[in-house]
């Protein structure tokens, strides 16, 4: 391990040093950005251990692909793309191992969410930011992986429909319907939580 202190070095210089093989510079990058990368993995998988493993795998891939980092986007954005792709692969493999879920059947047939009554009152109004975070986290955990993925990519990663379709590997129509059902379900879940609390 290098004895050099990289704590005050900017990301660009750290990337350059890491490209030269300086593991200590890469360690500093991991330290700085590990939380958002882990958070993205967790938001997609909802399993702590899977999220830790996938984010670590993403960092290993990041090291191996450093030459491909052009600096067009920020280093975190670049790393986030890597972890998202790993999570998608992980979820696809999981999906292959389980029977078709009720949510997917619902989605194909129009879904119950389409007929749900509209939530007229903003269920999140008046909530503290921290409280809202907890509720959203809980509600996200109750969505199917397919719905959650599209929602996370659209709302958190600010991807447009086309980019999501490309990333997930489905049609734009599927992205739109999944996003719609996911939002409706989120609204209903948040409204339910409001009633309970």
């Amino acid at each position, binding site marked *: *391990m290098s004895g050099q202190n990289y704590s005050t070095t900017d990301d660009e210089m750290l990337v350059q040093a890491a490209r030269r*093989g300086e593991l200590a510079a890469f360690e500093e990058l991991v330290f700085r950005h*590990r939380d958002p990368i882990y958070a993205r993995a967790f938001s997609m998988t909802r399993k702590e251990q899977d999220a*830790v493993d996938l984010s670590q795998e993403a960092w*290993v891939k990041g090291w*191996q692909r450093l030459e491909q980092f052009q600096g067009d986007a920020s280093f975190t954005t670049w790393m986030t793309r890597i972890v998202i792709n790993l999570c998608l692969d992980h979820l696809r493999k999981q999906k292959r191992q389980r029977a078709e879920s009720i949510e997917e059947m619902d989605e194909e047939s129009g879904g119950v969410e389409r007929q749900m009554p509209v939530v007229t009152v903003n*269920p*999140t109004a008046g909530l503290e930011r921290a409280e809202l975070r907890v509720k*959203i986290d809980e509600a996200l955990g109750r969505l199917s992986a397919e719905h959650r993925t599209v929602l996370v990519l659209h709302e958190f990663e600010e991807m447009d429909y086309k980019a999501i379709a490309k990333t997930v590997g489905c049609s734009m129509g599927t992205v739109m319907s999944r996003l719609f059902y996911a939002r*409706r379900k989120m609204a209903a879940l948040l409204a339910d939580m409001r009633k309970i609390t």
Partner: protein
Amino acid sequence: MTQEQQLKLQAFLDGELAESEAREILAWTQRDGAAAALLSELKNTRQAMVQAEPHLGVPETREFFWSKIEREIRRQEPAAAAAPGASRPAMLRDWLLPAVAAGALVLVAAGLLVHFNVPKPAPETAADADTPTVETTLANSDATTYRDASEGTTLVWFSPAADDNPAPNKKPTAIN
């Protein structure tokens, strides 16, 4: 309201419609209460999510989180420090100096053993006595070892390997 109309409404909210189409949808929401209510619900949900993305942190210490990454990098790239473009000082620091130091220690230990004719250790103790030998017995599992030499503590953590990307020849490695 048809499904197509619902999705159009959402596309309007997300700025995915052409200007002319967006004007049509806007007019529709102004005269149709159900469309306006649905648009409002979708907008509230989107706003809530954008404002309050859950903040999460890695549930492991910096050292433990990094140790697994470093181990994997070194396993996949035995000469990580000798990767294309690797600097000579880094190679020297990361590999050569520890190797020389380890070699010197082995020589000193061997010299002492010969000199004092201390009874030979059991075969498995020929390696560093402080380094545990770890074997995983479950398929697709992995083990991480952490040594706190100053406290005389050894931690061995068994974890299932990611079955989606089985790394070949995953052997536990000591992290000291």
